[in-house]
């Protein structure tokens, strides 16, 4: 079989990956409104200050996905400022934030070529791309599917590939928006295993989830959002045993939080 890397073009416009770190990824006074509705209400938050796993919890509509998109430069806030490493976000550092979406967006090429594309974007020399892609695929348990068209992988495999692609470029911080939503327990466990390895390597992780079990398993700290505001940010053990806000108490007891 012909190597995918030989049959697909490399990513365009490679750029240096040696740019200044994006850490901390911080927002101050972040405001987002949509059709008169407040989605984020003057939020201050800094992520990635320590190599730990931050879980963002909150009911539907709390503003979790919008918050991380604003912090990662994917969405412009209506008010407030975002900084990466103390300076304004810029396109050349965007790929130092590894972003994994709830619904994986994979290119129409092989699993390996998807990763090699991301590596090329960061300016990784072509000679190193194959080995780095192999490492990432192995880490995600996808080595046997490296030459398979990414679009025909199962949902769990696609999400693991998306994760492998994000970590292959050795981002400063890994941000995941409900990566295990709609996945079966085995696929969820596989993703959590990969995340465990990344955390052990010292990369800060930010994860949105509605799965309290997953939050308990992975969290070092929890940020709890409600109606566009941070209700509390605390160590995981404390959050799950003694949540301070009534909304968080209701949330972790499985009650409907309005």
């Amino acid at each position: 079989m012909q190597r995918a890397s030989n049959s697909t073009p490399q990513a365009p416009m490679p750029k240096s990956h040696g740019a200044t770190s994006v850490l901390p990824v911080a927002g101050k006074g972040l405001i987002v409104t949509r059709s008169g509705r407040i989605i984020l209400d003057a939020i201050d938050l800094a992520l990635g200050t320590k190599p730990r796993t931050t879980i963002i919890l909150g009911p539907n509509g709390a503003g979790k996905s919008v918050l991380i998109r604003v912090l990662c430069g994917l969405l412009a806030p209506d008010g407030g400022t975002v900084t990466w490493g103390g300076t304004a976000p810029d396109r050349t550092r965007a790929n130092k934030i590894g972003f994994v979406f709830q619904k994986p967006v994979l290119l129409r090429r092989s699993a390996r070529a998807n990763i090699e594309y991301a590596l090329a974007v960061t300016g990784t020399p072509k000679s190193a791309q194959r080995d780095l892609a192999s490492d990432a695929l192995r880490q995600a348990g996808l080595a046997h599917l490296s030459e398979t068209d990414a679009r025909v992988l199962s949902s769990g495999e696609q999400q693991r590939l998306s994760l492998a692609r994000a970590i292959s470029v050795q981002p400063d911080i890994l941000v995941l928006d409900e990566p295990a939503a709609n996945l079966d327990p085995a696929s969820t466990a596989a993703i959590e295993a990969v995340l465990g390895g990344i955390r052990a390597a010292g990369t800060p992780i930010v994860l949105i989830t509605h799965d309290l079990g997953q939050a308990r398993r992975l969290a070092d700290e929890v940020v709890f959002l409600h109606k566009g505001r941070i209700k509390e940010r605390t160590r995981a053990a404390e959050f799950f045993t003694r949540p301070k806000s009534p909304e968080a108490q209701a949330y972790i007891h499985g009650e409907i939080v309005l």
Partner: protein
Amino acid sequence: MSDLTTAFTTALGLIATLNPQLVEIVALSLIVSLTAACIAALIGLPLGAALAVTRFPGRRAVIVVMNALMGLPPVVVGLLVYLMLTNQGPLGSFQLLYTPTAMIIAQTILITPIIAALARQTIEDLDGEYDEQLRAFGLTTIGRMQTLLYEGRMRLTTAFLAGFGRAIAEVGAIIIVGGNINHVTRTMTTAIALETSRGEFALALALGLILLALALGINALLTSLQPAPNAAQRFGARL
């Protein structure tokens, strides 16, 4: 009826024996239309991609005009190109009138809007799908266009084929700027028009059959290049 049968039999004979005149006309037609389609693709694909991924004042108006140009009347294109290339025209000094180059220019003008408009729609659909991921990669606008053009390669092939199909079947423009000169600018469509007017149906029928076969082949190719529905594609590949 017997005349028609005779003409049809003769036409099949011309095709079967690869009649030199027939082959010459078909070859010129293919060269002219393929060249025009390639040039139109080189212009239309980046133009369509640029329109799809950029936002600027008047963009919608440009798209409306481009879509309208898909229906350009060939004779009008022929007339405009004629006026440009005629001795008194601004490009008259190049002496291109009644040459295959003039026909290529006319067909390129005719099908560039088709390829550009189809590419714009394809790339815009893909851009909606890939937008956040491409921004997370930190791509430039040019990088985004390159990536989306590659990602849409199968559907963009159909845009190319649609342009080629329009070019090869077109007669109005090339008969004006090419002049239908034997051994020089005679293509399938212009030859059919001439032979029919002369009452010589055998060659016209033979060329018509080849044109029909080409149309059928292009459509078959277009159909085979349509992406399979997601579920069918996924499960078809997995099972």
